């Protein structure tokens, strides 16, 4: 589905926050690789989708009322069997309801457990005076503490994309540091550039978070995504 259609549907349902499934569909339309993520509305459907996708899988809560999914027990990783999926489904439901009894739950997302890579985050928000801005950084708690992120104002040139990746302090990690697999920098640059042209064309997008993106030697893939529209 086209991003525009997804946005229209979300707006029509009175929401501004896209679910992970919707957000990843948008990424697919932009041409940014994301893990295939399908919505399951029941435990049985989750098991059946897991079988189609292939184990191991990840289950995540899909609810417009839950923003930080892992903080409220809404994420289960590395599920290897239909029994794992069944148990994870129950745990996610009860934990989410325990945190917010009124949460509107659409179901759970089922996705392939991605091979772990170097965690990278890419974000977009709107500055009051300069408009849409892209942010780049490494994932992980240390980087959050050190605020080791770089910014560029949309639209980005390819030089901007190259520079914003290289100017973070943790850049040597992306080059391959002490046995860490080097990240595919052109893939990350392309992600930034595609996102830049996308937000330039879609003024209704207020915020985007691709967090994390797993960067590998041969590419990069968004494992979680969040999109917020202007109200």
């Amino acid at each position, binding site marked *: 589905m086209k991003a525009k259609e997804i946005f229209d549907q979300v707006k029509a349902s009175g929401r501004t926050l896209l679910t992970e499934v919707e957000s990843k569909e948008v990424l697919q339309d932009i041409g940014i690789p994301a893990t295939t993520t399908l919505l399951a509305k029941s435990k049985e459907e989750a098991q059946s989708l897991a079988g189609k996708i292939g184990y191991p899988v990840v289950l995540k809560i899909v609810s417009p009322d839950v923003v930080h999914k892992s903080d409220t027990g809404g994420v289960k990783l590395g599920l290897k069997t239909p029994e794992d999926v069944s148990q994870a489904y129950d745990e996610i439901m009860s934990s989410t309801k325990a945190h917010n009894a009124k949460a509107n739950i659409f179901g759970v997302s089922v996705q392939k457990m991605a091979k772990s890579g170097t965690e990278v985050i890419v974000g977009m928000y709107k*500055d*009051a*005076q*300069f*408009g849409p*801005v892209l942010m780049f950084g490494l994932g992980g708690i240390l980087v959050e503490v050190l605020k080791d992120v*770089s*910014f*560029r*104002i949309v639209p980005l040139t390819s030089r*901007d994309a190259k*520079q914003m990746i290289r*100017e973070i302090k943790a850049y040597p990690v992306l080059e391959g540091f002490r046995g860490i697999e080097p990240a595919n920098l052109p893939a990350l640059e392309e992600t930034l550039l595609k996102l830049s042209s996308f937000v330039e064309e879609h003024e209704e997008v207020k915020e985007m978070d691709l967090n994390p993106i797993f960067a590998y030697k041969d590419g990069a893939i968004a494992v979680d995504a969040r999109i917020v529209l202007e109200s």
Partner: protein
Amino acid sequence: MEKEAREKLNRALSPRTVAVVGAKKDSNYSWLVNNKDFRGKLYSVQIDPNEIPGILELGVENFPSLMDIPEEVDYVICAVPRNVSPYIVADCIKKGVGGVTLFTSGFAETGTEDGRQFQERITLMAREGKLNLVGPNCMGIYNPRVGLKFSAEQPHSEDAFGGVAFVSQSGSQGSGFSTEAYNQGIGVSKVVSFGNGILLDATDYLEFFADDPETEIIAMYIEGIKDGRRFFQNLKAAVAKKPVVIWKGGVTEESSRAANSHTASLAISSTIWDALLRQCGAMNVHGLDETIDAVKALLFSRPIKSYPRLGLTAVAGGHSVEISDCFSLQGCKVPRLSSESYEQLSSFYSVVGGSFQNPIEGGGNWAKEENVTTILNILENDPNVDALVMELGTAGVQRTHEGLMQRIQTLKDFYSSSKKPFWAAQAGGTQRVPTELAREVSHELQKGGIPVFPNFVRAAAAMKKLVEYNRARE
């Protein structure tokens, strides 16, 4: 900027006729007195009979209205109270002046309702009348070439002219830059202090100076931006034409509160600001000294695109340690010289009280002009050296003015026959050299292509800025 507005603004910035409206005894007729060296025709507009005799005593022709001035008026300085200013703005529009500076304050920067309303009213009038309105709440235009000033100490001699435009939201930073640039041997094309910038703001002046043939470098002091997107686009376009150096005032929460009450500017996140300048390829500086040093490096130095291996010279041992520290702390290298260089140096260099390892130091060896040329040429020809930095000493031969001028000539002659960047700096401390002499030395050397810095720390920081600036633009 439309062609007509641009032509008019050009008239205001390089005027042949200037009118001061509202000159007063209370302020010692300062706007008229400050402009006594104006090379064009200066008029006064004043209707108060108590004020007129004092104006005539200054030898300035006075008229009751702008409309009565018998020729075209390029630039108006309006120093009337806020409540009178709309009438003067209306006259400026009717008269078709090039531009007007509203020195008057008491507008949006006061945070009061009537201040905002007055500002709104004047903005509408000026916009409809296509008037180039500078300000309000500002000092306006300084142009040394035509002797137009907004503070008495701004110089207008020939060596005050040059290629640097300074666009300043603040009048005091504007006059500070004018005098400091002069003292540091930098020539200025124009300085504009634009205050609240209700019609023309930083972005418009940036656009103007990017295409101003008299301006080679644009330096700016900015507290706030009206339209961030437009600034972003214009800055990119300007940087493609000439270097832009920007000093942002109000980068912390505390200082942005001051900027709001000073020029009604809204806070800008410093993270985004830094990213914006990097993205556009402008040089990001803080404070007057950094602004001056950045301008010097950009204006006078041969290009330095990566951290250079430096050949250093110093007057004495302690200074040779200091100069090495300063530059190596900023990322530059201080290598050993080639064996050929050491051979040549050892053939004449006295190591009693000196050393030529790099830095090459020891005052006595530098007394003779031919030694100076020889030493500099050894560094110039050394394959381990990318650029030269010399300590400008103040002792020995340089105590007499004649000796000093001879030394300057030696350095300029060497530089014109060389290819590597060559900078000069004094050791730290103030008042080593009288201001006027320091100005003369800087002016002469910089005219010859050798930037001169007041101390090693500032020179080294400027070199790092220049390298990072060029790297970001690769």
